[in-house]
């Protein structure tokens, strides 16, 4: 780069002289264009002849010239902003904003001559423009652009890029980019019969080392008349790529499974309290999740209209609010309905089902039946790659969040007075009452707490699910399955069950399809519950009978 910068002034000062020279040049052939490489101004002047052949040759020369303004010129040509004067054959460049400069020197032209016409293109020229743009990107000062350009060559397998690639490799100093360039070069030579066999074999190995889908495509598209050694190397490469891809596919599915597991955990975790600890069959649990999601929607609406700068914090603001709203709804339900039904699980089931219908219809009446748009803050959008596996930020955060909620819950139950009272009341209600614990209040608080947890789950799930009045219904059966599968009253069981079911579901999907996979899981859980009615981590012995 330094060399380029140093020569810039030289180029500018020589420009005029060169300009005179090009007038005598005959229409170019590609071979002669190569020769003009050392003569940037001459190259640029060839655009002025308005001949497709000259334009193409000039592009070829420009792409390997190392001229820092080359990409600007190629871009202008592509966009129809490279102009020439039919009289003088002088070439000008008009910026997107409309300012006209001399194409060769970059000097501003205050009064451009009248009658300027854009340099014309045909399909051949357009291809050449693309190739030149690609080649120029290979030597762009920005390493990220060079990397992209190398990837583009790798993908296109366009043999014409080879000279540009060679030039770029010679100049490249960044190790990562150099590897990418070498891989791109390998793709171009592996199927090229004019390259030495040993080099082609080496190229095949280099491609195989990349190990992704595109490498696989490159190796699979080898010409049929390639030498045996090359074919063999390619076949070995294909095999190793396939097995590594299969491994990555499993890893990706495990990741999806973890993601699904975190969703299940979030949905089930509140239920693990209301059902697992208190033994209340709350069929309106899914609606608590739904109310949490709608709270997020309302918070975002308010922020959008009155304080848009807070949008990045919208989820953080929604969390405590969702907890409060759903906890209050939960306490209300407990005090008005559920407390009259303790010890009658089937009646509780029916009554809470009724409540779920009422809550759904209430939300439908207030917000309408359609899906509501809940936005993602910037830190929840986008994704990154680990090897062959794509990881989206929203899924990652939801996994982290689910685990945080889980451990917070463990802490509350094990380390706080509320947790102590809850355990006391659920284990021996009469004894707890005799010791002065107000059991009714603890019931209400516990139920409110479980509902509140469901509410904050709703905040997270609003990021990945449709926020509609039916949101909760999709979770209720799954949540019960997770809690029952993990063993009622066992929080760690819920954790293991959620992730276990999530991963099992996603690993089954490639073979069975999404719906059938879910059915298989459901059937397996049904069979499992019938074998071990108390779940994975059941308490044994007399305590169970109580």
């Amino acid at each position: 780069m330094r060399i380029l910068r140093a020569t810039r002034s030289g180029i500018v000062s020589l420009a005029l002289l060169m300009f005179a020279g090009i007038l005598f040049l005959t229409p170019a052939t590609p071979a002669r264009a190569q020769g003009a490489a050392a003569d940037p101004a001459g190259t640029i002047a060839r655009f002025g002849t308005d001949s497709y052949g000259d334009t193409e040759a000039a592009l070829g020369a420009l792409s390997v010239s190392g001229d820092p303004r080359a990409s600007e010129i190629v871009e202008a040509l592509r966009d129809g902003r490279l102009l020439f004067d039919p009289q003088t054959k002088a070439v000008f460049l008009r910026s997107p904003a409309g300012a006209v400069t001399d194409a060769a020197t970059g000097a501003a032209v205050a009064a451009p001559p009248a009658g300027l016409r854009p340099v014309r293109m045909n399909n051949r020229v357009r291809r050449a423009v693309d190739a030149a743009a690609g080649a120029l990107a290979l030597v762009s000062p920005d390493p990220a652009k060079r990397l992209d350009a190398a990837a583009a060559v790798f993908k296109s397998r366009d043999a014409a890029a080879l000279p540009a690639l060679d030039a770029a490799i010679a100049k490249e100093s960044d190790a990562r980019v150099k590897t990418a360039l070498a891989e791109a070069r390998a793709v171009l030579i592996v199927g090229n019969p004019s390259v030495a066999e040993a080099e082609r074999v080496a190229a095949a190995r280099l491609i195989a080392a990349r190990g992704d889908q595109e490498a696989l495509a490159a190796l699979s598209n080898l010409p049929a008349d390639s030498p045996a050694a090359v074919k063999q190397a390619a076949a070995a490469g294909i095999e190793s790529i396939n097995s590594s891809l299969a491994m990555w596919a499993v890893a990706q599915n495990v990741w999806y499974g973890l993601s699904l597991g975190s969703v299940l955990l979030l949905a089930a975790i509140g239920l693990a309290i209301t059902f697992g600890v208190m033994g209340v069959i709350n069929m309106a649990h899914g609606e608590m999740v739904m109310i949490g999601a709608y709270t997020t929607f309302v918070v975002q609406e308010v922020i959008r209209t009155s304080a848009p700068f807070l949008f990045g914090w919208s989820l953080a603001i929604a969390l405590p609010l969702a907890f409060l709203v759903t906890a209050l709804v939960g306490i209300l339900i407990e005090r008005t309905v559920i407390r009259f039904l303790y010890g009658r699980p089937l009646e509780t089931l029916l009554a809470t089902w009724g409540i779920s219908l009422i809550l759904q219809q209430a939300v439908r009446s207030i917000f309408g039946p359609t899906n509501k748009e809940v936005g993602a803050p910037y830190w929840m959008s986008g994704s990154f790659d680990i090897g062959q596996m794509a990881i989206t930020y929203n899924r990652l955060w939801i996994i982290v969040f689910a685990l945080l909620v889980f451990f917070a819950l463990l802490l509350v139950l094990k380390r706080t007075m509320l947790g102590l009272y809850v355990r006391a009341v659920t284990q021996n209600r009469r004894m707890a009452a005799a010791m002065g614990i107000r059991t009714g209040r603890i019931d209400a608080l516990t139920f409110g707490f479980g509902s509140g947890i469901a509410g904050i789950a709703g905040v997270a799930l609003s990021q990945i699910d449709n926020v509609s009045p039916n949101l909760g219904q999709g979770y209720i059966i799954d949540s019960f399955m997770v809690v029952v599968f993990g063993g009622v009253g066992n929080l760690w069981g819920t954790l293991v069950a959620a992730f276990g079911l999530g991963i099992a579901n996603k690993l089954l999907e490639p073979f069975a399809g999404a719906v059938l996979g879910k059915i298989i899981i459901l059937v397996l859980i049904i069979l499992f519950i019938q074998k071990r009615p108390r779940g994975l981590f059941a308490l044994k012995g007399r305590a169970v009978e109580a």
Partner: protein
Amino acid sequence: MEPVTQSLLYLDNVSVVFDGFRALNALSLTIDEAEMRAIIGPNGAGKTTMMDVITGKTRPTKGEAMFAGIHDLTKLDEAAIAQLGIGRKFQTPTVFDMHTVEDNLLLALKEDRRAFSNIYWRRTAREKERIEILLERIRMTDQRFRKAAELSHGQKQWLEIGMLLAQEPRLLLVDEPAAGMTDQETADTAELLRDIAKTQSVVVVEHDMQFVRDLDVKVTVLHEGSVLAEGSLDQVSANERVIEVYLGR
């Protein structure tokens, strides 16, 4: 099959472990034909677990449990064991609340237990007669059309004993029959049990020492899942260890 033992009930080296807790610890016990035995012991001594093992509710972790010398109780389920002739009365009286006294006895009568044949069932004269006799024996003839839910606690205890008799078992397991009864009812119950023991074997679990004295039979003391002492009530009452763990000094 060759009988392994002459005893009606034969428990040998039976252990039950729940999550590391030994509810029964190498318990051995035999009950003879037409013998009545009282079992006492502090809470958690394993009395209920022992009954659970005998009736098939709990599978022993190890050990042998034989009935009439040929039936391996560890391999059978509750229904099969009940059909062999082992009847059980629970600590809290469990009768069928929504059925009449008469229907409670009818369901208990030793008859065909299969689902299909009971659809076509018609009451026979023999069944009628046996119900009459049972009602007489538990002194509830005048209560026969009342729903069991309406009975007093003591009446429910007696009804349950009547149901046990209706099953015509060879061995009766009776858990705290005198709990919640008046003194008179307790004495009557003891007499009823002694009467039953003339023809059938009875195992009584009881806390009430007066009641055990009334029964006047061999006593087995359980402690921490195994037999601590065995003998007459006076013998075991004099035993140092029994006094220490159960009766108190």
